[in-house]
């Protein structure tokens, strides 16, 4: 028995630093991966970025003709506008729905309904994006044509609704976690003070859970910005500065997905698609960064 304990002691002494090292590596690897991805994406586009690409035109021109025979133009403003408009529209729909559902699941519904709802919501989150795209392409397309009496249903509205449906489950489950994390003693205290259910929610729960709820919304935004297949299938995929929800648009992500396969490796077209990748990367970085600042600001003020 004593020998066994001794062996364990020896093992422990050797294992401790090894395990510590492995854990440290796991932590650092996140940073390595992020920089690695950024580096490799940027490297592919680098040649064009430093030689040939007019950055001002790239960012401010809506003219995207990468495969024109005699006048190639690489302006992504229309694509940025497409991504932006679809995302904003999706959030306009998804945020009230998602937060409302999160509040309902966390505060109002009974335990049985809660279990069922959570399972269904998780199921919703697990639907592959191509299936969502298919629904947009068939069901939503027909519905939009019929309801709004427009010639084509593959529009910003279609993409926005589909993206909203895809973002809602994330917003609900993260938002519900945030609300669940509010100690019950807060609810009890507020209720004992004579606050109604609704007063407890908007005076105590929402302010307390605001960081988590904001995180939920921004994860939804992240999903919407990064989504590719569903928007490719539902927005009509036409390079266009949108002026109404019934315009077809094209997003940054869909452009990369649709064109990378056709562009000759190493050509300007090929490389500009990687620069779009860097641009997407930068947008998500800015979104995250701003979120951090906002959350910190909230914390300091509070």
């Amino acid at each position, binding site marked *: 028995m004593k020998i066994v304990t001794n062996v364990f002691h020896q093992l422990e002494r050797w294992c401790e630093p090894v395990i510590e090292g492995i854990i440290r590596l796991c932590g650092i690897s996140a940073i390595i991966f992020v920089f690695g991805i950024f580096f490799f994406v940027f490297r592919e586009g680098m040649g064009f970025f430093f030689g040939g690409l007019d950055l001002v035109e790239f960012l401010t021109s809506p003219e995207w003709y990468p495969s024109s025979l005699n006048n190639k133009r690489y302006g992504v403003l229309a694509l940025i506008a497409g991504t932006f408009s679809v995302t904003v529209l999706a959030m306009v729909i998804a945020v009230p729905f998602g937060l409302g559902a999160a509040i309902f699941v966390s505060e109002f519904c009974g335990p049985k309904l809660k279990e069922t709802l959570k399972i269904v919501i998780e199921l919703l989150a697990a639907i592959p994006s191509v299936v969502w795209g298919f629904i947009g392409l068939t069901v939503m397309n027909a519905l939009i044509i019929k309801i709004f009496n427009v010639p084509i249903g593959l529009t910003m509205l279609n993409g926005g609704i589909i993206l909203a449906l895809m973002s809602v489950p994330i917003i609900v489950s993260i938002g519900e976690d945030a609300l669940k994390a509010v100690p019950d003693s807060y609810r009890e205290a507020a209720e*004992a*003070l004579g606050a109604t259910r609704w007063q407890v929610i908007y005076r105590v729960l929402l302010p307390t859970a605001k960081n988590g709820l904001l995180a939920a919304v921004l994860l939804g935004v992240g999903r919407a910005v990064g989504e590719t297949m569903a928007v490719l299938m539902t927005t009509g995929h036409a390079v266009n500065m949108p002026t109404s929800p019934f315009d077809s648009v094209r997003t940054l992500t869909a452009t990369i997905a649709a064109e990378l396969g056709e562009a000759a490796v190493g050509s300007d077209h090929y490389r500009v698609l990687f620069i779009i990748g860097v641009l997407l990367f930068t947008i998500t970085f800015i979104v995250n960064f701003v979120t951090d600042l906002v959350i910190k600001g909230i914390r300091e003020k509070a």
Partner: protein
Amino acid sequence: MAQLSKSTKKIEIADLTVRYDGLEALKGISLDIYENEILGIIGPAQSGKTTLLKTINRTIEFEPSAEVSGSVSIDGTDIQSIRNVNQLRRRIGMVFPLPVGLPMSIYDNVAFAPRTAGIRKRSELDELVERCLKQSALWDEVKDRLDSLGTKLSGGQQQRLTIARALSHQPEILCLDEFSIAVDPVTTMRIEDILKELRSQITIILVTNLVQQARRLADRTAFIFESKLIEIDENDVIFSDSPAHKLTYDYVHGNFG
């Protein structure tokens, strides 16, 4: 004057039984609480003291498994017949064992209940907040930082903040549930002084795990043991050498519990 008010029943509890999932937490409790007295409630943990308080302000309704039978009346009105439960809760101030500063400023903590009741005028709220914080002996410590977060106060300060909050809706009844469990002795004594001052204006139910606290503060004390009311009487009797039940004597004198 004191004798006169003692004759007025503020709360009448009749044959109150509460079950959680069929398990009895209170068994056939009947007792009266007089206006403007401090009633001490003592008894070991798990004997149903907290449940009794929750029944009085009907927060028991948030426990889905709880089943209540019997009746509780305030000023002669059965509380079950009160339609607006929030109005009932505003008549009762509640202080919990662990201080719960709501995650908002000190000012907003105290102004919470008045605001939910519809008071919006800043001057009125200012006055109210100052009065309640003075009543709870916290004003001098926080008057220069009413905008800072209530949860950042020390435990003892937070407990006084919750008392200020419980007083903010001008309740007729103040329930304290083992308020001294998480505060230091000095704060405990300060809060006890506050309660003594409030005694003339408000009916106080003091649930406590400290027998001596009930002895110091209460006019009468009830002893609850294993979900049953063993005895309720004037402090002179409960803490004498001959209360009606030997169990009471043993508990009060620390022979068990």
